[in-house]
């Protein structure tokens, strides 16, 4: 038996729930086919979700999953230039005609899909992003120059969470695009995803008792993002997410974290997202999305 997981035509953090639900019990017993033929667009979050699923299946020692690439030439070219297929080929048996390799990514890809396996990778990510961040953040989005460094700090802290807490490797991608549906403005989106143990298991030994019966994926996300706790007792830990929240508050940005069966978001006024969603379909690891919108004249 093969279970077909259809990739949503527009694959972002919202349609992700449809993708996660299609796996059923985790890890699925059947062979998996991820069908992206009908895909029209994927955010960095969507691209990383597909790789994370492939990684989690490999780590669960399931049969190598199949992946049918998008039919649209434009979509597959874009995914290729964002670096998606380079890593998808390691995790999936790819079906369909891949576009020819291109020398460099599109100009709105600040950081193509990049694996985060160790501390050295975080250094690489920060080096790479510093080259294009100021052009996009200052030039296009109208953020102050100093925001560029804070942005790199936020990215560094988000990637370090994988190395320090996930128990496995993960992925990061950063892209700028126009957020027509929800905001009508240009945004920069950071997506970070891993197939690791998730927030609940990471924090369980040090914080579950305090929450009693309330303990679960949602409570763990609240503890990490709202209360700034860490699995380490060192008071210097857990500051990364606190810093990211402060930075986003200043720039009217948004952060959402999905882990296990829950999702928590700090929702800015321009969005209508639900702050906490619980009892969602299980998905391995943790998926973080950070959105920074262009600043209007009032904010600048």
């Amino acid at each position: 038996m093969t279970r077909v997981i259809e990739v949503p035509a527009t694959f972002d953090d919202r349609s992700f729930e449809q993708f996660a639900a299609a796996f059923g019990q985790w890890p699925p017993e059947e062979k998996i086919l991820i069908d992206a033929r009908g895909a029209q667009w994927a955010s960095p979050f969507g691209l990383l979700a597909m790789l994370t699923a492939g990684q989690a299946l490999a780590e669960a020692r399931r049969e190598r999953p199949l992946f049918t690439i998008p039919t649209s030439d434009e979509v597959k070219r874009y995914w290729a230039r964002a670096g998606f297929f380079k890593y998808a080929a390691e995790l999936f048996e790819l079906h369909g005609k891949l576009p020819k390799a291109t020398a460099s990514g599109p100009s709105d890809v600040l950081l193509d899909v990049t694996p985060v396996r160790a501390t050295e990778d975080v250094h690489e990510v920060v080096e790479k992003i510093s080259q294009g961040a100021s052009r996009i953040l200052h030039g296009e989005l109208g953020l102050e120059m100093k925001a560029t460094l804070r942005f790199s700090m936020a990215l560094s802290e988000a990637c370090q969470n994988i190395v320090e807490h996930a128990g496995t490797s993960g992925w990061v991608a950063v892209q700028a695009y126009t957020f027509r549906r929800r905001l009508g403005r240009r945004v920069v989106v950071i997506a970070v995803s891993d197939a690791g143990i998730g927030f609940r298991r990471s924090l369980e030994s040090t914080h579950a008792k305090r929450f009693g019966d309330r303990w679960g994926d949602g409570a763990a996300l609240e503890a990490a993002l709202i209360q700034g706790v860490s699995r380490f007792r060192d008071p210097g830990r857990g500051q990364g997410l606190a810093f990211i929240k402060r930075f986003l508050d200043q720039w009217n940005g948004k952060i959402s974290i999905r882990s296990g069966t829950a999702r928590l978001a700090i929702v800015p006024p321009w969005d209508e997202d639900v702050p906490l969603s619980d009892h969602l379909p299980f998905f391995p690891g943790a998926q973080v999305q950070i959105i920074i919108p262009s600043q209007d004249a009032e904010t600048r």
Partner: protein
Amino acid sequence: MIQTIRIGTLLRETVASPYRNLVTRPTGAAIRNRIQAAIADSDCHTALLDFSDIELLDLSCADEVVAKLLLDEGGERGVRFVVLSGLREDQHEAIEHVLTTHRLAVAAMPGGEHPAPRLLGWVTADARAAFAFLCERGALLAAELAGALDWPAARAEAALEALAVHRLVQTDGDRYQPLPIG
């Protein structure tokens, strides 16, 4: 005597690459170890950490390099002083954030938008005022500070003692003197 430690040089030697970004906890811990080794080999009573070659300093590294160094170098009063220099505004911010969490403080040399020495981290408003006054006027007694700022003697003494406990001023008997950072 002041020992200047160039953090950019330590970073290049530690990660064996041309990076100017001080990021990640393991890197920060390695840099801190190098700083502590340098301090241990020196007779100087003040270590000046020069960040001028550093581009980005993330919170994890600020915590590992500065906060943990202060925690380790703390303890017995009057043994070693740490001062920072060459910091940019975002680096000030990162260090301020982590030190406040630990209820620590450090002095930073003038530079950039800050023409006078300043304190980063967790200190009372009185201690900040006393520090600014001390840096401007030089060594003084608590009674002199009280007279100058029109404070009760106990308030001036508490502010200066708070600075001494955080190793932000030197003491010589009853006199408090600024660190050599002006």
